[in-house]
């Protein structure tokens, strides 16, 4: 099923400068895998060396962070909105 993924500007240079990407996936993990296939290297943005989502990255499904759901095994439905958001340090 198609799922829309929001890409924030810090990640866009790795994603052909697109702010929305539509990929197939029934879970968050499947969506992340699909993004890696479409944009090789995406894994390095959202996984650490042990293939866990690092704690400075939050993934939201319909505006809810997945740790409060079922993590990367969170099921997705047609039309769900996924967002991959990194912590930002900038203030100056």
């Amino acid at each position: 099923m198609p799922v829309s993924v929001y890409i924030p500007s810090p990640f866009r240079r790795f994603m052909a400068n697109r702010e929305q990407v539509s990929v197939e996936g029934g879970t968050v993990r499947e969506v992340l895998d699909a993004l890696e296939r479409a944009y090789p290297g995406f894994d390095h943005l959202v996984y650490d060396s042990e293939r866990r989502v690092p704690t400075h990255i939050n993934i939201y499904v319909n505006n809810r962070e997945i740790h409060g759901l079922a993590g990367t095994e969170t099921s997705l439905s047609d039309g769900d909105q996924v967002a991959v958001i990194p912590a930002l340090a900038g203030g100056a």
Partner: protein
Amino acid sequence: MTSGASENGAQGGGSAFTPDEVMRYSRHMIMGQVGPVGQRQLRNASVLVVGAGGLGSPVALYLALAGVGRVGLVDFDIVDLSNLQRQILHQTQDVGRPKIVSAKESLEAYNPHVTVDTHELPITSDNAMEIIAQYDIIVNGADNFATRYLVNDAAYFSGKTLVDGSILLFDGQATVYKPGHGCYRCLYPAPPPPGLVPSCAEAGVLGAITGIVGSIQATEVFKQILDIGEPLVGRLLLIDALTMDFRMMKVRRDPACPLCGDEPSIDELIDYDQFCGTPPLIVPEEVLQAARGAPA
């Protein structure tokens, strides 16, 4: 507006607003949500702004313009020409001067009725609690993860509300942490490895996004002081300047949070450079000397 004790804010004790102040703040005081009583609440409030840069500039500016009685600034940086694309408290003639000095001058020029406290020193585990204790509300405009975690932890230990904002490229984030309702560590339990997330100096930042996020932070401060509206507590506002989309994410207190969770493991400020894997801050000797002679 007619004159009188209730209209000029004399009720509740303290001095009445001068005619100049009544005129200056009239566009706030005329609103029912503020009024003379709210304007007095603003005047009685104190707010610490960490960083006098991209975010700190618009935050401090709007706080001063609105008549927040005491605005504190923490910064030890020097104004650089590359700051002037966004840091609106500093001007061309300020290049080479301490930011804290030009910021104070700018704020006092905008509104001589406010008191501007300056802390020209790096905020560290040694002084954060003492500095933060002097203010009602804390605003985070730091430019690095180590300071962000430090300010978060110190604000939590102090029981102070932290109005948080961050920026990079065309994006901004804003939220409000109130003790008991989650903290920065609930949202981002640990920082990225050094070098993975670039800074604004490394990747760039749209000057105007600092104004957007800083204005939102200032707005949240006003709402806290006036106790009006729906604060950004439990919500993370994501701003994308390129699409001009504003997204609101739900933020929850994490029961496993090492700071504010059910079984916290952090009970005092730590070494944040070590925590973030960043090299210790190198502070110019003249700044250290000035800090030693300055009240924290």
